[in-house]
């Protein structure tokens, strides 16, 4: 076995330029795939993290059934117990508690139906991006009770501005009337029209008082350190909190369940990306195929001689296959290394695409996009290159079997 391998290795270096070019083609393709896939996945991660930070968090703890039907009565009765448990979980970046109620909000001029959300100003600033989305006025302070943040579109529609008063009227947890006058402290703009038109945020304590919630809340919103930690955290909560603490009125939906559209959109984009990659790999494979074919044709004489001295065609075929495998592996390794280095560089410093800053800013997406190197992104592309290159080298190799030693040797 090893003599073919040694010969194969020596053979490929007999013609360094050709070998280097072939390796370069494979390395180039691998490198591009590593980088592009890392970039794509990194973009997705950015997209997910950004979307998730605007309101839903990576995962939430809620009462069972709340996801489907946000009834006031479906609450988390003991947020303190939940908080204590969450503090013990590694992988959680931050968490915060929220309450929601569907209310009428009215200004002097207009009345609208909105969702009023009670937030813990300190914790919320870490868990979601809302603080940074406040464009006018200021964010809420911890002890603010009767002040509110409002979406820009809503403030326009109600014809109100900072320091104006609005009235909210809704139903408390026990069915009683919940009503209050709030002063607008800040106006935010998330870029998502639905959000800016239908949401008002106020202090959690104030909300609990107005809506007769006591200490209970509706949602525990959790942000994870990274996207990969989400399922681990979810498992942890399900196994160790929900069952042991005996509170099976709670559920732990993750962002995919809360925002199914996001995941699907990403899947769609991934598919179109994959189409592009496959085309690239086909082109590269073809390049390699060409090269191998020509090389083998060129070495017809050499093979003829080998066959004449008794080498079986299948051994020659094996030899040639080894040659191609060697080149492929070197190329792939090189591609992975360079690709990874380039990716890591941009992972640190980010990529800035001219012309897109405005749109990205609107949506709260950072201007720099970061590729993310992972086992998948580093291995998937090169693996496919390996497969296809392998396959494309088979045909030329098989041609050898058809050689007639005498005729072959007569070749120039």
């Amino acid at each position, binding site marked *: 076995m090893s003599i073919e391998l040694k010969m194969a290795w020596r053979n490929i270096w007999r013609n360094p330029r050709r070998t280097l070019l072939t390796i370069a083609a494979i390395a180039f393709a691998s490198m591009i795939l590593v980088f592009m896939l890392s970039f794509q996945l990194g973009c997705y991660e950015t997209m997910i993290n950004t979307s998730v930070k605007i309101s839903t968090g990576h995962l939430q703890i809620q009462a069972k059934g709340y996801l489907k039907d946000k009834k006031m*009565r479906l609450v988390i009765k003991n947020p303190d117990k939940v908080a204590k448990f969450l503090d013990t979980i590694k992988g959680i970046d931050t968490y915060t508690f929220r309450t929601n109620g569907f209310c009428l909000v*009215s200004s002097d001029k207009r*009345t609208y139906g909105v969702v009023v959300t009670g937030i813990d100003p300190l914790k919320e600033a870490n868990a979601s991006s809302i603080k940074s989305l406040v464009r006018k006025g200021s964010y809420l302070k911890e002890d603010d009770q009767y002040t509110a943040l409002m979406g820009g579109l809503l403030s326009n529609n109600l014809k109100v501005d900072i320091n104006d008063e609005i009235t909210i009227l809704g*139903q408390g947890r*026990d*069915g*009683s*009337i919940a*009503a209050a*006058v709030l002063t607008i402290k800040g106006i935010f703009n998330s870029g998502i029209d639905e959000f800016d038109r239908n949401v008002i945020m106020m202090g959690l304590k104030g909300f609990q008082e107005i809506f007769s919630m006591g200490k209970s809340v509706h949602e525990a919103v959790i942000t994870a350190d990274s996207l990969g930690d989400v399922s681990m955290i979810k498992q942890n909560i399900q196994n160790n909190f929900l069952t042991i603490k005996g509170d099976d009125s709670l559920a732990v939906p993750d962002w995919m369940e809360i925002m199914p559209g996001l995941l699907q959109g990403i899947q769609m984009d991934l598919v179109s990306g994959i189409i592009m990659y496959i085309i690239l790999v086909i082109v590269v494979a073809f390049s390699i195929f060409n090269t191998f074919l020509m090389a083998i044709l060129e070495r017809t004489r050499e093979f003829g001689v080998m066959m004449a001295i008794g080498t079986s065609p299948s051994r020659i075929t094996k030899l040639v296959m080894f040659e191609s495998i060697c080149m492929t592996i070197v190329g792939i390794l090189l591609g992975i290394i360079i690709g990874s280095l380039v990716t890591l560089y941009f992972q640190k410093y980010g990529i800035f695409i001219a012309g897109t800053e405005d749109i990205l800013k609107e949506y709260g997406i950072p201007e720099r996009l970061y590729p993310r190197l992972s086992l998948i992104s580093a291995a998937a592309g090169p693996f496919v290159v390996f497969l296809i290159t392998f396959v494309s080298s088979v045909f030329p190799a098989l041609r050898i079997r058809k050689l007639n030693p005498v005729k072959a040797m007569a070749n120039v």
Partner: protein
Amino acid sequence: MKKAILIIGILFFAASSHAQMSAETIVKKAFDYWRGEASVSTITMTIHRPDWERVMTIKAWTRGESDSLFVITKPAKDRGNGTLKAGKGMWMYNPKVNRVIKLPPSMMSQSWQGSDFSNNDLAKSDSLIKDYMHTLENTKIHEGKKVYSIKSMPKPEAPVIWGMIKLTIREDNILLSETFFDEDLAPVKIMTAWDIQMAGDRLFPLKWKMQKSDTTTEYTLFVYEKIKFKKSLNKNIFTQTNLKNPGI
């Protein structure tokens, strides 16, 4: 011969249309009896759910078929909260924020005060007369009194969500039950009235319950602690100003 047939035909026609008008009349009379020309009452409303219960005391004024004012007097923290229905609009008042708010369409299908009545139910209280055609299905005798079972179908263009309503009305014009059906004629909720006593100048059911058809643990119970029927009430009671300051 021909004349006989004609006469029989006319009589038959008269009889059936009489029966038809009868159903209509029965319903109208029951409705008028219930709403009276005007009334002032004190009601205890209990909203019952599997895991909680809420009790409120409400003072109610009604005038004619469509005007009504409900103001909460107990518990103390909800005291002064009121709902006014006058003309085509519906308003709510909350003393804590001291605001009168007109209810927009998006709130109409929401429940009133968390009960099994929707805001729309209150707003469209005269819908039974305006929007339905009634037929008498049968007449039974119960405790010596005739009880009519009436089927009410919505008029073709009427903006009502129900597919059908069935009423049972006693011959002395007391509404005993009202069942609401969806368009596939499956029952959705049912209102029953009982505990008939003398109230002022007439017999009246003091207890009313609105309940969803598929559960017994969710219902809203109205108990009339006091009710007085009047010939008329001042129009000014049914204004936004009075909503804010109803003198309870």
